[in-house]
Each structure stands twice: as structure tokens, then as C-alpha cells.
């Protein structure tokens, strides 16, 4: 969200997000960039009040000024747009390292998320993803406006137009052992970014492909869809328990796989089932943390100004 729009920043903590991206880039007009920088330090604790992690997206061409303005305690991650070379990531790393030291932030804690939005970035993707230990998550995007423009690819079609670019990103992330963001193909032929129903389909597809990380959205209307879609359902959990029960039976036979009710049961299915259960537990824990943060914030606000709390 644009850091220059106070009502977005002020209400962000109420949205139930796992992370919030404070934007200095495309959503901030050029003449407001300096003003925007001055707002980030205060915005970080504001957007975090509901338990969300605070990220900031900086500008490709004003790295030093932007980082000086945003590297403060509470910042979790720097999103760097239109990354094209590994050196850019190394430069970010060295500046962040200095600022962490100067500002009392535990060293190495602020992450870098190098966005790939150009053909050149795609060609250098493996070196970019491996350029800093601060890059901990990496992977495919569903193809934003900038990426589509640079590659000359249409955005809203009914087939997967980014097979190669997404594959390169994901193979790099997996090869380097990073957290993997995947973007299973879900057609968006309408061009809507605020359609909660479509966001739910996208998040569900990611969950069903085994992914735990969402790419984020541009409109509060999609937050609940992302949370819901990425969280295992009761059916998923029940099914995982069933698979593990069948697997225990398989183990006792000394065979490596069996077919039960038309489904293959083997160590791979068992691993998927265990993953589902672990992920369901982590989601529940995260929801609990966020609910606690919201309750704490509300209690503080009620103490300070009972009328302000709706």
C-alpha cells in the first residue's frame, strides 16, 4: 500500500494480513517520493499492530536514500523491484548490513526479496536468487504489469503464458534450498485485482500444489481469500490423517506402495500428509498470534481514547 495515503496505513492492522508491504515505488507519485520516505519509520509499527510483518518496497533507482529511510527496527523484509543483476542484491546487502549495525538491529535479520520483472532479470535469475543469504524466499510470480510489459506478454489470457519464466524462478529457488513461492496457473481473463473469488481460487491452487507462501494482493478485499485459500481445510486434515493411517498399515507389510480406494499410498503421499498437518498447525498458531496482537492493540486504544475505537 502507498505509504503516502494515511487512511490505508492507519487501518492496515485491521485487515488480518500476515504481511503488509509499505510501498515507496509504483503507488507513490514521483513528486511525493521524498515525503514518502519520511513516513516509513512511523508506518512500520503502525501496520504491525495486528500481528502482520512489515515489508517495504523500495525504488529500483534510489536504493541508498530509500534504505536509509526504511531500515528501522520492526522491518522484516525489503522488496527490491526489477532486479536484473546479482550485484544489485549485493549492494542492497552491504547497505542493509551497515544500517543494521548503526541502528541496533540484529545483524542479518532483514531479508531481501529481489523481484524479477524483466527479461534480463530472468536471464540472471539463478545468480540473483543466490546473491545474498538475506534472500530466504524466492520463486514465481503470477506475472505483474511490469513483467508482462517487459516480456511483451499479455496478462489476461486463459492459458499459462509464463511457463518458462516461472519455471526458471522456481528451479532457482528449489536448487538453492530457499523458501519456494509457486504460482500455479489460474486464468484471470477479467483483469480484476480486487476480485476475492478469483484470489481464493489462486490461493487454493497454491495450497493444493503444496505451497505455503502467497504473493500478496493489492486490495484488502483479497486478504481473507488468501488466508482462507492457503489454510488447510478440515477435509484436508481429515484426509491427511486417513493417508497416514493407511501408510502405517503399508509399513507393516514391508511393501513400498499399495492402492487403497483407488489411491496410491506410499512414502510420498505420507510426506504430503505430514506436511499438511504441520502446515495446518502453523496456520492455527499464526492466527492465534494475530488475534492476540489485535486484542492488545484494541485494549491500548480503548485506554487512550475510548471514542476512537469503532
Amino acid at each position, binding site marked *: 500500500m502507498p505509504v503516502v495515503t494515511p487512511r490505508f496505513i492507519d487501518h492496515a492492522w485491521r485487515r488480518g494480513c500476515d504481511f503488509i508491504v509499505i510501498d515507496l515505488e509504483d503507488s507513490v507519485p514521483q513528486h511525493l517520493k521524498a515525503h514518502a520516505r519520511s513516513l516509513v519509520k512511523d508506518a512500520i509499527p503502525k501496520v504491525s499492530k495486528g500481528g502482520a510483518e512489515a515489508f517495504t518496497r523500495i525504488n529500483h533507482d534510489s536504493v541508498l536514500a530509500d534504505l536509509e529511510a526504511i531500515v528501522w527496527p520492526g522491518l522484516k523484509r525489503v522488496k527490491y523491484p526489477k532486479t536484473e543483476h546479482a550485484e544489485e542484491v549485493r549492494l542492497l546487502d552491504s547497505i542493509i548490513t551497515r544500517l543494521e549495525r548503526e541502528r541496533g538491529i540484529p545483524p542479518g535479520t532483514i531479508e531481501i526479496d529481489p523481484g524479477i520483472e524483466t527479461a534480463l532479470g530472468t536471464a540472471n535469475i539463478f545468480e540473483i536468487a543466490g546473491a545474498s543469504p538475506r534472500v530466504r524466499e524466492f520463486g514465481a510470480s503470477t506475472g505483474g504489469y511490469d513483467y508482462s510489459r517487459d516480456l511483451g506478454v499479455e496478462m489476461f489470457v486463459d492459458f499459462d503464458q509464463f511457463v518458462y519464466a*516461472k519455471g526458471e524462478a*522456481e528451479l532457482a529457488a528449489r536448487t538453492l534450498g530457499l523458501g519456494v513461492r*509457486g504460482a500455479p*496457473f489460474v486464468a484471470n481473463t477479467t483483469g480484476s485485482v480486487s476480485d476475492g473469488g478469483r484470489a481464493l481460487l489462486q490461493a487454493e491452487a497454491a495450497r493444493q500444489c503444496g505451497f505455503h507462501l502467497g504473493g500478496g494482493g493489492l486490495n484488502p478485499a483479497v486478504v481473507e481469500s488468501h488466508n482462507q485459500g492457503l489454510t488447510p481445510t478440515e477435509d484436508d486434515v481429515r484426509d491427511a490423517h486417513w493417508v497416514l493411517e493407511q501408510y502405517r498399515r503399508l509399513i507393516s507389510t514391508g511393501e513400498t506402495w499399495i492402492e487403497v480406494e483407488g489411491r496410491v499410498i506410499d512414502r510420498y503421499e505420507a510426506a504430503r500428509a505430514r506436511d499438511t498437518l504441520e502446515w495446518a498447525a502453523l496456520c492455527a498458531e499464526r492466527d492465534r498470534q494475530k488475534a492476540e496482537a489485535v486484542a492488545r492493540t484494541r485494549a491500548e486504544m480503548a485506554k487512550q481514547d475510548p471514542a476512537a475505537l469503532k
Partner: protein
Amino acid sequence: MPRSWILVPVSKPEQIEQASRSGADAIVLDLVELIAENDKRAGRANVQAAIRTAKAGAAQVFVQIDPQSLDADLNACVWPEPDGIVMSRVESPEQIAHADAALSRLEHERGVAPGTLKIVAAVETARGNHAAYDIARASPRVRALTLGRADLVMDLRAEPSHEIHLMPYLMQRLIIIARAAGVAPIGAWWRAPDRGLLATPENTYEAAQRGRAIGFKGAMCLRANQVEPLNRAFARDASPRLNG
């Protein structure tokens, strides 16, 4: 190059016999995927008998081995000689070089002509796929590349479109690398609900046809009833022609 490769556990003589009657062009005796960890030692002791059983038919015979237990697996399988080995989960050219040297030594010790044994490299992990071009060129013994069970090893699941996540990219990448290195790309274009080389004969035929269309030369399977569809789809004269 074989059109159909059937993978059977080295510890199951009845399945090996069935495979040798299935019409498969190649039988892969497995020491990795289809054999429980506790049975691997016994499995290695079975390899020589299994090779004899498998060689009763006309099929080529390969042994699938694990780079993690390379020497033990290779020791078990160089004589009577199979046509080659399938190296599962290959991740680096060094592993191929190591296998190449071990095979040369065993060929020498056991009176097998040097360079006889071929290697099929199964790149089933991200690292393996990343290094696939170097892997394919690491030894003249490498004659084919396959994704093996990458969908399971890398935990790639079905997308809403029924494509297996990431596989369209990995398949095309593998085929280009294999062609560039002058080796055969082995595989079929499976779609959900098929997983891990298991499918009905009809779905196997369709997967093989799609696979052939994007450049695969023959595919692996796990069931005897999948062999005929593979042979049919990958037959030399089966390519669809455009009608004038």
C-alpha cells in the same frame, strides 16, 4: 532406444517374469524406489538372479541404483552384465564420473568389454535438473536423461488445469538439454490424476503421445498393462501425419 521401460522391484521374481513377457523394450530392476530400506541388502543379493530372469526375454535389462550406495549397488550388478544402469536422483556430473570410473573398474575385473555398460541419468531433484546439461555430458556412457519420478521426489502436485506443477517447464528443459548433449530424452507428459508413472492404459497412451509430440523418445512405467500403450505411442511409424 527402447520405447517402453518398465520398472520392477529387484526382489519380486514373479513381477520380473511378468515384465519379461510384457513386451517391454527395457526392464529396469529397481534397487531404489520400490524396495523397502530394510530389504536393500537382500535386494542386492538378488540382482544376479533377477538379471538372468529378465534376460530370458528380448528386453534390454537395466538396474536402477542409488548414488548414495553407489559402490554396493554397482558391485551387485555388473555381472552377468545388464545393458546398463539407471542412476536415480543424480545431482552432479561428479556422481556420473564416479559411476563411470567404478563401472570401468568392474568391467575390467569381470571380463566385460570396456564401455559396454550404459548410464541413464534420472534427474529427479531441483539440483539434478539445474545441473542436467553437465550431467548429460559427464561420460560417454550417458545415453539418456529422464525426469524419473521428479513429480514425487520434488513434491509437484496437480494444478487446476490438471498439469502437474512445474512439469511442462521441466520436461521441455530436459528435452532441449538432452538433444543438445546428444542423448535421448525419456518420458511422457503425464497429467492429473496420474502420478508417479501410474496410470490407466488409456491415459498412458495419451501421456505418451503428448510426450512424443514434444520430443520424448520412449517412457518409463510401473505396470505391465502400460507397456503396450507406450510401444504403440512411441512406435517409429506412429507419428501423426498431416493430411494434404
